[in-house]
């Protein structure tokens, strides 16, 4: 694939390196001449000095034949504009923007950006996974369906221990998909499955029902 990367900072550099290793054709656009020289000396002549939000620069970079454009500068607004120019002027099929303010995820989506990566959310999700006492972990978001896959651990003192799935008052937009017991044995839950202490429950839910699901499984 021909991939254009906007922004040759640390993220842009390591991203280019990884994508080059995977065999892709890469072009980096970077405003700063020192960064531009650094990338060219490290990775070969894959970097052009210029503003990736300018149509003329993108034209010279052959954006018209690009399969993907990834904007990873440090400014959300620059990433938005680079992706929009690529999408609406050069018809790039797939645009990806890095964002810092997690709220921009919804805005960028509405403004036509295909994928957003929020560094803040990625760090937050990793922290949630690393902190074992956290009651609820987000495993995956199914964006176009507005659903998420989450994991909830049942503490021994929970009121739901010993109850069957049928007895739980689960929100209608949540489905328990898998229960992994303490002995690492996964089971697909039925109405008669009994909840045990230390069970890890994998569930599909809408974000709105997340809190109700947590309460139904662990108590308030």
């Amino acid at each position, binding site marked *: 694939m021909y991939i254009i990367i906007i922004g040759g900072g640390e993220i842009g550099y390591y991203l280019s390196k990884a994508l080059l290793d995977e065999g892709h054709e890469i072009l980096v656009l970077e405003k700063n001449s020192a960064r531009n020289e650094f990338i060219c000396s490290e990775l070969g002549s894959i970097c052009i000095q210029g503003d990736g939000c*300018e149509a003329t620069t993108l034209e010279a970079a052959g954006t018209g034949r690009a399969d993907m454009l990834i904007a990873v500068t440090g*400014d959300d*607004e620059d990433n*938005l504009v680079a992706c929009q120019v690529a999408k*609406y002027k050069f018809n790039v099929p797939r645009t990806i923007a890095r964002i810092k303010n997690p*709220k921009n995820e919804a*805005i960028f989506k509405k403004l036509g950006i295909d994928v957003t990566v929020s560094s803040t959310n990625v760090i937050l999700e990793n922290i949630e996974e690393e902190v074992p006492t956290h009651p609820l972990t987000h495993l995956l978001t199914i964006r176009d369906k507005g659903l998420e896959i989450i994991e909830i651990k049942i503490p021994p003192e929970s009121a739901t221990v010993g109850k069957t799935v049928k007895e739980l008052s689960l929100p209608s937009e949540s489905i328990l998909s898998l229960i992994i017991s303490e002995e690492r044995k996964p089971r697909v839950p039925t109405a008669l499955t009994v909840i045990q202490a230390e069970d890890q429950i994998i569930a599909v839910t809408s974000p709105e029902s997340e809190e109700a699901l947590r309460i139904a499984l662990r108590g308030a």
Partner: protein
Amino acid sequence: MKVVIMGCGRVGAQLAALLDSEGHKVAILDTDDYSFQRLPSAFSGTALLGNGTDEDILKRAGIEEADVFVAVTQGDNRNVMAAQIAKHMFNVPKVICRIYDPLRRELYSTLGLEAFSPTTIFAQILKEKIES
């Protein structure tokens, strides 16, 4: 009318003062509180410190009830982003933004933004002056 202006530079401050003196309800945003010194002492509107590309700051400036949003910071991309947020997320009836880069202005005009390029306009005025 309720007007939210983003960017309290010379143009932003001048516009805010004009609208305020005519009795409109004006809120002006800037990331640097020093820039509010450009506002006249008689200014009775709201001057708010913050970034207009941030939804929360726009809400604080009263974007939800605004009739007009104007983006006139020094950054084309900031103007473009804030204007699109005002138009598409908050459905502000009239949204105007400044884009210095003529090519970028052209693109965003075709995408439905009311955008002006001072570069093109001023170059045109100069040309007419020279030729007259």
